[in-house]
């Protein structure tokens, strides 16, 4: 009985000390806090995304490699006087606008300059899918009201481009030529490029 009472007293003492200690710490903390204060500016910054891709294509060349969103590879034969039409939908899949430029490069400049002609037509931008008259139901190629230079492409918008490549009637010997049309999107210092790559062969005339 006595032992029980003694333990109870010890517990009570420990409890009291604990309460006092807590009160002391609270008092000191309060005293400190009333004369010092920190104010904050918390900033969260989310970066934009910059990305274009080939959403769809429409070609008159019979053979092509599968589309991988950034490169459309076309391989086939071409005959003198033939015109190849290729249409692609470039989608701005990022969150910023994009300025589009295009450039043609080839592995055989002499043949390109001598025997080929090229034209490019741009349509859009479109917030939704392009209208049928400029895409898959065009009565003629190129569709009417095409632009000679690409317009600015806002985020989430589409741009249609039709290009033709025509071989003249005059080549006299067989050749194979690689032609790359690069469409480069630019915003600030960011760039992204999609390509249409042709590998065209002229069989022996």
């Amino acid at each position: 009985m006595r032992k029980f009472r003694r333990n109870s007293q010890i517990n009570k003492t420990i409890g009291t000390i604990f309460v006092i200690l807590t009160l002391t710490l609270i008092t000191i903390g309060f005293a400190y806090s009333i004369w010092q204060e920190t104010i904050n500016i918390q900033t969260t910054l989310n970066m934009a995304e910059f990305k274009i891709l080939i959403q769809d294509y429409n070609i008159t060349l019979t053979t092509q490699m599968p589309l991988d969103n950034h490169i459309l590879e076309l391989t086939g034969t071409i005959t003198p006087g033939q015109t190849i039409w290729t249409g692609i939908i470039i989608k701005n899949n990022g969150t910023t606008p994009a300025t589009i430029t295009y450039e043609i490069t080839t592995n055989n400049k002499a043949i390109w300059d001598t025997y080929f002609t090229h034209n490019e037509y741009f349509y859009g931008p479109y917030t939704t899918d392009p209208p049928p008259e400029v895409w898959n139901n065009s009565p003629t190629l190129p569709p009417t009201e095409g632009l000679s230079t690409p317009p600015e492409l806002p985020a989430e918008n589409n741009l249609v481009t039709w290009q033709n490549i025509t071989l003249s009637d005059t080549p006299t010997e067989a050749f194979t030529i690689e032609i790359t049309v690069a469409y480069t999107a630019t915003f600030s210092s960011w760039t992204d490029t999609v390509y249409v790559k042709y590998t065209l062969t002229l069989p022996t005339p």
Partner: protein
Amino acid sequence: MDRHSLRQIHLNPPNPIKEDTTMKTKIFALLILAMIVLSIIGYSYACRNGGIQINCYYNCDVEFTEVTTSDNEIEKEVANVYAEICDGDKINAYITNAYPCYEAYIDFTIKNKGDKPVHIDEVRIEDYDKTALEISIIDIIACTWISPGETINGQVTVHILQEAKQNWQYTFKIKIRTTCYPERHPRTIGFWKHQFQVALGQIKGKAQVDPDTLEAYLNQINSSSAVFTFTGTRTEKFQTALKILTPPNRSSMEAKLKAQLLALWLNYVSGWTNGYKIDGMTAEEIIEGSENALTTPIPAEYEYWKDLCDRFNNIS
């Protein structure tokens, strides 16, 4: 020993349990007393005023009162910046769709809503990706004061660098640490001597002004004063200042004036003379008059200016 005497002895026998309880009570009381004393010391320390006065009726409150945002976009609106004040002591800012070369500006106002001057101890940008962001804060700088009711404006500029990653989130925090102080007032020549003596290690003790700040004050005086020059190492500057502040007993009136004038300069550059006047003159006017008397020179006026400087330094 007979039976009677044995009974007498056992009339008031010692009670070990009672003694034990009494001892515990005493220890317990001492413990409580010690706790209370510690509490008072802690509280008093926190509320101290120059180490001699206890004033706990502080109303210290620094808050953001306004925040606006803008950016460097002129033609196109691509990125956005938005900010809001939360509970007065926090600004939450959000920048979305940011890109290289984009700059966001967060303009904010801080108000001292308390009744005591507030000192900005530190303005710190916590760890952030320096390869992607360039952050700067203008107008709000450490070691400045905000008087009661006064507002100050600051601006945070966030510049996105070329290396910033696309589709990525960056966060950062700016902490402005402030301390509520008793009213500012000019300090005596003795106060300033003490600061330099401690900084030079000539005496032990606690200085109220740290050596970096002291040197900054002397540099400021060096560039503004026509009388005082402080060059060389920090120690040399401090020694020069201390020498001026401690003229010999039978020194000239010129030396005495210089001593009080330097103390007034130190009070002036530390911002402790703001709002005070002696004989209708501000510290700046007294400094100008004293320096004019010394550089012209007009020895007849030395004592007059020395007394003015002295009174100003003892204004508290």
